[in-house]
């Protein structure tokens, strides 16, 4: 007779460590020798959990009056009875397990000559390194367009190459971290994510430059560059963490936001530490100049410009009053 279900005990990386066959329901889980499935975990109760089939025929996992309770990893609060299919895994004591009904489908059989299944297409090395190279080339092209001295092609190529190297190291560090908590490093995935972030960052800078040139005052560089920059940083950390861990997405989004927020806070505090903030001699001209035809440049007349200048006076007057 076939099994009714399997209980798979998982390790920290989510890999199956042991499988226990369930032949009869209900089945008891715990440390006690009377249980159907024995767990060598001092944090579990002698009879900790019970698997049974409810009236609808659904497989349920239930707390059998344990000391430390039944949990679903990533969610808060003990659970009492949950359908086996409603949770990817359960935790009792320090043991993580999942309950797999016998009727669960499995992947189709590989043909005899099929290759070992590899990572998803976007995680493969060729697209990942192509994106990294594109980021390097984009940087190099930008440098070349900006160069007004005697430009040195060797230097520009070296700079472009260093972008690729930095991306590779960055992705490598993330891959090492991923390998520590999961069974695969997923280097390609990390490199793709980081390269995309750099490319998007360059695009943002370009757009911000044109926006600051065309609409000074209306959209300041701070807003155009700062907010997308912030969003991009959160997205970068988010995707790295999605690749690296099996935590729920909502939790990862919170962590990514918190990390970027912490960096931002440190930055703000460090700036405050300078005392006066911006130096009294520093002039911020808003010097974004682009070679556009004047027909494309929205402009005001001289009278309108100088009527707005009066605002500056009240700003510096109130600064003087506060600082006096």
């Amino acid at each position, binding site marked *: 007779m076939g099994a009714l279900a399997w209980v798979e005990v998982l390790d920290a990386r989510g890999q199956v460590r042991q499988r226990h066959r369930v032949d009869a329901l209900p089945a008891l889980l715990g440390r006690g020798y009377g249980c159907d499935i024995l767990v060598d975990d001092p944090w579990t109760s002698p009879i900790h959990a019970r698997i049974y089939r409810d009236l609808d025929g659904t497989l349920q996992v239930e707390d059998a009056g344990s000391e430390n309770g039944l949990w679903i990893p990533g969610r808060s609060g003990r659970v009492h009875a949950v359908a086996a299919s409603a949770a990817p895994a359960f935790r009792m004591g320090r043991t993580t397990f999942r309950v797999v009904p016998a009727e669960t489908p499995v992947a189709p059989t590989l043909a005899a000559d099929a290759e070992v299944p590899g990572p998803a297409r976007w995680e493969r090395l060729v697209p990942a390194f192509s994106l990294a190279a594109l980021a390097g080339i984009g940087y190099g092209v930008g440098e070349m367009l900006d160069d007004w001295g005697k430009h040195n092609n060797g230097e520009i190529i070296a700079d472009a190459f260093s972008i690729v190297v930095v991306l590779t190291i960055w992705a490598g560090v993330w891959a090492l971290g991923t390998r520590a908590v999961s069974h695969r490093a997923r280097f390609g995935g990390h490199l793709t994510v980081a390269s995309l972030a750099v490319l998007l960052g360059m695009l943002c800078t370009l757009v911000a430059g044109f926006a600051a040139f065309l609409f000074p005052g209306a959209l300041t560089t701070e807003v155009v560059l700062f907010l997308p920059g912030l969003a991009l940083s959160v997205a970068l950390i988010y995707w790295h963490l999605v690749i690296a861990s099996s935590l729920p997405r909502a939790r990862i989004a919170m962590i990514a936001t918190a990390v970027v927020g912490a960096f931002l806070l440190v930055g703000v505090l460090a700036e405050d530490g300078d005392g*006066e903030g911006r130096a009294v001699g520093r002039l911020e001209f808003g010097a974004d100049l682009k070679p556009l035809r004047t027909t494309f440049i929205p402009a005001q007349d001289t009278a309108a410009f100088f009527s707005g200048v009066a605002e500056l006076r009240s700003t*510096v007057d109130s600064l003087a009053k506060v600082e006096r």
Partner: protein
Amino acid sequence: MTRLLAVGCGLLSALCLLAVRPAAAQDSLSGETAVVFQRYAARVPKIQVLESTSGAKAVTGSAFYVDTKGHLVTNYHVVSKLVAHPERYRAELLDSAGTARPVRVLRVDVIHDLALLATDPRRDVPLEVAVGLPAQGRRLYSLGHPFELGITIVEGTYNGLMAHALTPRIHLTGALNPGMSGGPTIDGAGRVVGVNVSTAGNEVSFLVPATAVRALIAAGAAEQWTPTPDLLADVARQLRTYSDGYLREMFTGEVPVTTMAGVALPTRAAPFFNCWADADQEEGRPWRAVEHLCTSDDVVFLSEDLWAGVLEFGHTMYTSDELSSTRFYSLYQSSFDDDYQWLGGSGEDLTRFECRTRNVEQGGATWRTVFCLRAYKRLEGLYDAVFKAAQLGRGNVGVMTRLTLSGVTAESAERTARRYFERIRWER
């Protein structure tokens, strides 16, 4: 830029010493100089501004008695620290007997760099202040206390009032040295022709004319020698009146024009401007810059790193045959961003600059236009302003212009910058 003659502590260097003719060398001087020295040296005491708690010297200079009631005249820049921070500094004079006496500041004329002091009278002999100017080439004698060398006499030649200056200064050919600030320059009869104030090196020295000294003494006498209640407020008032005065008509009426890349731009808008042009083309560099700069040299000393009355405007034309327009604009942008206009000052005296940047149509062209303003914290109603504009949309040609004003009222700064900008025309 001229150099002021007050000595900060630690300025004594071997190089400067060479430029000094100490009193001991008077045998080599002409007989009249020896007579002048003997007769008048005692009327020129040394002034020391001391840090209150430590008693350490912060500034030394010279002064001279103007009456028998203990009133003296020196430079404003000798006692400026005391005026700005009476809680941190005190001042004293060292008379010819070597006795120290406390002095206080009665009133100041910050525009001419003069201060009227008072001390306890002790049978001091005053110097008479001359009426009118001496003849060109007249021999004059400057007295003062350079460095720590004791009372010194320097011979010089009167070379008239500086042409086209906003504030009158006497040009003296003679080597004034740091520490002689505030000392008198007298004729053979002991009449004060001017007050030692600054040097441009190479025996080119400057004096505050006697008329300003007489006016300050008269104002002091009219107020029964009572001290001005709030000296800093008075300094601010003087600067506001002064700057409103020289900016009132600036860039109105007929203004001479210089043309760069088809753009007509103002030049030497008043006789006190010095204008010059310079082309900047290095071998093998793919772009060319031509600069036209006008400055007035009439700055007003406020502190060692802060000058009011800076009045400067200039234009730079950039062209390139080799650079693509994106590369050219990268150069143009970095040049526009360059905030070399370092006006000095610290956060103690000034707020930071606030700027307004817009694209503006003016004179048939579109300009990236910026106006920046910062306020003086301790001198009410005074500001520094920087105006800057760069012509847009001409591919590999660009004209940039800027105007810098320091120690002016905000109304004057705005009005002057607007008039300046409205003078500019693109004559296609």
